[in-house]
């Protein structure tokens, strides 16, 4: 069974989804970056990496939500969000729409987390958290909001 076969016989929903993710209809540059793998391959690969690191997507998303919640109280300023960790939330007008076909409208809210000691920082939008918890999707490589599971876990846990 070839890759082409799979792509050809995707369900119409999958094909539409893939199309939306690669277009910049919902976010500048789209969600797939320069990643040539199919959406399900991206999801599968990240799921494997995550399980190898010993975490589930629910755990990760839960921790991300916690951090965002704490950081919101800063109203755009840096606040302590954990041991040696600072976080900041930026919000913009409008919504981010989940590309999956369901009711998914999220605030345009970006959380930045910085480990004070190493200076390493990582950012995510509320949509990232949603995509990870609901769809296991960390976005394609090269996308503006791609999140590397390894780096994410190193930073927030």
């Amino acid at each position, binding site marked *: 069974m070839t890759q082409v076969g799979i792509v050809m016989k995707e369900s119409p929903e999958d094909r539409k989804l893939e199309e*939306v993710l690669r*277009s*910049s*209809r*919902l*976010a*500048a*540059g789209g969600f797939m970056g320069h990643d040539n793998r199919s959406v399900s391959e991206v999801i599968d690969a990240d799921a494997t990496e995550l399980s190898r690191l010993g975490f589930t997507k629910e755990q990760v998303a839960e921790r991300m939500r916690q951090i965002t919640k704490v950081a*919101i*109280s*800063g*109203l*755009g*300023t840096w606040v302590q969000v954990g041991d040696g960790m600072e976080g900041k*939330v*930026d*919000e*913009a*007008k*409008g*919504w981010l*729409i*989940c*590309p*999956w*076909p*369901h*009711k*998914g*409208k999220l*605030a*345009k*809210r*970006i959380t930045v987390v910085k480990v004070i000691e190493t200076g390493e920082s990582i*950012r995510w939008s509320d949509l990232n958290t949603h995509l990870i918890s609901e769809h296991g999707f960390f976005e394609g490589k090269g996308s*503006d*909001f791609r999140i590397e599971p390894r780096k994410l876990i190193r930073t927030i846990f």
Partner: protein
Amino acid sequence: MVLEILVAVTVVSLIGTVLAALLTICEHFIADYGPCQISINDESDVTVKGGKDLLSMLTAERIFIPSACGGRGTCGLCKLKVLEGAGPLLPTEEPYLEKEERESNVRLACQVKVRGDLKIEIPQELLAVREYTCKCVEITDLTHDIKQFRLELIEPTTIDYIPGQYVQLLTPVYEKSDEEIYRAYSISSNPAEKSVIELIIRLVPGGICTTYCFEYLKVGDEVKINGPYGDFRLLDSDAPIVFIAGGSGMAPIKCMLHHMKNTDNKRKTIYYFGANEPRELLLTDLMREFEKQLANFRFVPVVCEPEDSNVLGCEIGLVTHAVQRDLKNATECEAYLCGSPGMIDATIKVLEELGVSEDKIFYDKF
């Protein structure tokens, strides 16, 4: 032998042709929906060629329904009442409609296909929405990530709006976006200048429209906007006003202040503007001028991380703290907020603690 081949080829071609003809004929009769009449609010009728979704038909007829997802049925914004002719509710619409909405025939315009005559209801204010072609005449840096864009209207030449309303800016196809999208921005200009629109825009990382405005839009370029939309506006009363805003939330408040100046409004007004650090404050000079021109206006910038705050005469801390410390006679006030949802939620909490009743708090949440 030759005959056999000829017969074979003829038969196959014949069957192919018959089927193709059949399909073409069917397509002509089945897929042609003919002219469909859309009756809007029982007042006006438009006639369109059926077969496409209602949202794009209305857009083509220059009736603009807000939509954020470009008609894919994921944002649930393009709701309107379709009284007749929509057919059964589709599975793609179900998740977006509450029970009451379903009962009152609310549908998603982007999912309803025009297959015949329709009867729809559109809120009056949406019918006043027009598309404007403008020329960008000035781009001003307000802070490191906020710019002000001044757009001169070309066609139509004037616009009427209520201070506090917003317009949608069309981002054309450019390097980072392969299709046209609309994003909403509050009008910040002086409403007396009817031939000009000013927008205050903050750069959003990865934002399609803001990236376009900041990196691609040049003075002299043509842009398209449509509007006005929104019901954020000053109430006509004598109660003292509290404005609270942050970042590009300055825009509608600035517009309201211009309007107050134009109408020589003497209401007691105080404006708290929150920022992270002094360099994020914007239009402070203009606000100081308003203080001189308006009878009863005070501007209070609030910064969180002061470096040289003494120079500016700022309050220090979060904007919510400043309101808490500073605001007297809160119970009489009307509060108008514009900013991020986080800031608005926190501010509403503080205001309610101070005794401002819920129906006196108005906000334009991003």
